């Protein structure tokens, strides 16, 4: 079955990004297809490459990077939600004349249309995090 995953909360504020990561691994293990992983709202912090974790703690962005690149998955961060929260790639630092791109390499910055397009192509949409 084809799945789209939507992550809406930041790793540090919610367990949801970690739950989504485990769910994604279980999906692949069971032979399902991930059409797209989409990060919206504060979920975009899951794609901050500059996140640091003490050695005995999990670095979630790093884990996402591994999962996405090892399995050649499609992962997108909502551009409107991301730039408001300071998550930018090279295109955006150039566009706004700022320094310090920090988006995970395996993840793309794009519009909400990417979530909608993926959902319409999927059998299931599973949402992690969100609310207030």
């Amino acid at each position: 079955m084809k799945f789209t995953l939507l992550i809406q909360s930041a790793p540090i504020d919610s367990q949801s990004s970690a739950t989504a990561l485990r769910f994604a691994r279980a999906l692949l293990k069971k032979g399902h297809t991930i059409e797209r992983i989409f990060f919206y709202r504060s979920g975009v912090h899951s794609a901050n490459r500059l996140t640091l974790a003490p050695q005995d703690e999990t670095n979630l962005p790093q884990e996402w990077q591994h999962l996405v690149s090892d399995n050649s998955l499609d992962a997108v961060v909502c551009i409107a939600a991301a730039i408001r929260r300071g998550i930018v790639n090279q295109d955006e630092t150039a566009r706004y004349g700022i320094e310090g791109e920090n988006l995970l390499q395996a993840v793309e910055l794009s519009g909400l249309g990417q979530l909608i397009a993926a959902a319409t192509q999927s059998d299931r949409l599973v949402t992690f995090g969100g609310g207030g």
Partner: protein
Amino acid sequence: MKRFLIISRQSPYGSAAAREATELALACALFDQPVALLLLDDACYQLLPEHQPETIAQKNLSAMQQSLPLYDVDKIFVCQRSLAQRGLTLDSLSLAVTSLDTRQISALIRTYEMVINV
């Protein structure tokens, strides 16, 4: 084509939640997917008239919501119980919306393939 139901439970301005729910509903409509918005709990407050968010340097959510019908998000639902719990009535709201009781909300959810609590 998939039918999208966007659910919001947050009041405006205290966080970006209400705005990001509205933006998602608009995006669904822009990409030609049937979409409805369901407001629960404090999200009822999104529909109070006469917001003046310039006092806190924010954009007006009502203005964005007024554009929903223009983009064919013509179905906006609000939870009857949430309204009552807050002393609100339909005629005091800034948009023409439909109020639903719990049975109707339950039935509504079943008619959408993609349901997103923002």
